[in-house]
């Protein structure tokens, strides 16, 4: 392994955590119940903690978060998906936390440079996955309205899930096996939640592996504009 390999992987994993944390931060003060204000902020804070460790492995965390432009970010398109209702947020969390849990469990078991971070993070992510699973069950198997919203959200985000299993340079992972475990786990939860497992393609010519190559969806630029504005307005200032 050459010295540059962990950087690529650290950016990929770090950007996933950073961007999803930011999107969860958009919920502050908007959650449907106070308990979810606590839970979503808690998850966001865990992810931000992971992002800080990972980005620091690749360089200066703030330079990387605030001074890179859209084309240099390596996060999955899934985590940058904006807004939507609570079902959309839960579907995004279900897909991502299941992936992250499987991936970190594998990295934690290995000897690579990410093993220590993964060993700590896998415990946090187990909680995130459980939270997403419980809400998928409540919304899917709740009222007709919540069922319809959850089904729609799962369907809408499905096309971003193939990208999760594009091999990342520097991560020694059996991606096909990871994908198969992910599909089994997610499909099992969706069925228990009385939801249909989406049948559409999990990636298309437009999405497959794109985020990892710095090709993002349109709203991502606006997200960065908001996130980076203050930092960029005061070059060199410390906060």
């Amino acid at each position, binding site marked *: 392994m050459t010295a540059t390999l962990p950087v690529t992987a650290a950016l990929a994993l770090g950007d996933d955590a950073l961007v999803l944390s930011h999107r969860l*931060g958009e919920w502050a003060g908007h959650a449907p119940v106070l308990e979810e204000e606590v839970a979503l902020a808690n998850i966001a804070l865990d992810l*931000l903690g992971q992002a800080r460790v990972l980005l620091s492995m690749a360089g200066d965390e*703030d330079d990387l*978060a605030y001074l890179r432009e859209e084309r240099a970010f390596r996060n999955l398109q899934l985590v940058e998906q904006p807004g939507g209702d609570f079902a959309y947020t839960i579907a995004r969390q279900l897909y991502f936390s299941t992936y992250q849990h499987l991936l970190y469990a594998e990295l934690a078991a290995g000897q690579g440079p990410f093993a220590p971070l993964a060993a700590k993070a896998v415990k946090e992510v187990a909680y995130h996955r459980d939270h997403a699973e419980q809400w998928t069950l409540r919304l899917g198997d709740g009222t007709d*309205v*919540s069922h319809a919203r959850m089904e729609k959200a799962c369907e809408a985000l499905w096309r971003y899930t193939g990208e999760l299993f594009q091999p990342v340079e520097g991560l020694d992972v059996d991606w096909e096996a990871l994908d198969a475990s992910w599909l089994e786990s997610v499909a099992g939860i969706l069925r228990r939640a009385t939801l249909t497992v989406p049948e559409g393609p999990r990636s298309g010519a437009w999405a497959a592996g794109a985020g990892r190559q710095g090709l993002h969806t349109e709203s991502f630029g606006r997200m960065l504009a*908001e996130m980076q504005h203050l930092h960029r307005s005061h070059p060199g*200032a410390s906060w």
Partner: protein
Amino acid sequence: MNTPAATGAPPQPRSLESAFEDTIARDQRVEPRDWMPDGYRKTLIRQIAQHAHSEIIGMQPEGEWITRAPSLRRKAILFAKVQDEAGHGLYLYSAAETLGADRVDLTEWLIEGRQKYSSIFNYPTRTFADVGVIGWFVDGAAICNQVPLCRSSYGPYGRAMVRVCKEESFHQRQGYELLLTMMRGTEEQRAMVQDAVDRWWWPSLMMFGPPDDNSPNSARSMAWRIKRHTNDELRQRFVDMTVPQAEKLGVTLPDPELRWNEERGHHDFGTPDWDELKRVISGDGPCNAERIARRRAAHEEGAWVREAATAHAAKQAARASEGAAA
């Protein structure tokens, strides 16, 4: 508190009341199952609920900056703080519920404008320095108010305040530390801090409520030991605590009358604009409409989620009882 009910004889109202008075006089705690005067119960429900509402509405002015925080460390601090505030709201609603209130009703009363929250959260956070000043002033003022409440005569409230105060003092130090960092920074950062101090000073002094000669509920609350100090005493304590911190920070407080009074051993200071306070608490502050609108929107847009959780829980319970019957 021992009530005569423990003896098995039907309690007499007079003995209940004297037992309550006795508990208060001995500085002991009233607990949820104890008899208490209606006025005491109502005053506490109002005060605790308004305290809870303040925590929840207070998430907004700082929450504004989570997505714009200029470093990942500050972003993490903001997330943690907003999470703590939601947690404080939850403790306090639980404390109010021990008095027979229902969180659903209290939420309704907040978004209908029938119950109030702290006047301070009706002011806008215009720059990132506001985040630091809120930590320093607003959490500092909250600590002055709340530390004595840890000894409030009502047990659940006092115990909630112990947990709240620990976290609040942490927030206050973090706010002050942000300002110290900014004051060591660029010219623009220092100007940003001074500007925020100028805008938040007077509203922070108003957090302690109207002056003592115009504070209708104070005397009774003090007699019941729900409150421990008057509004003016606490305001003075806050000023005395904050002035040296301002000096250390290198900012000026926007009050030409502010000076040390050797004789009193306290700082003299100018008079807050009480008309402004009256306007703000009656709904006409800069952000009152937005704060309530946002709370209402979160509540209304979240209704389908709460209904789903209730429906799912009912289904689970039904399945469990079917399982048990089979």
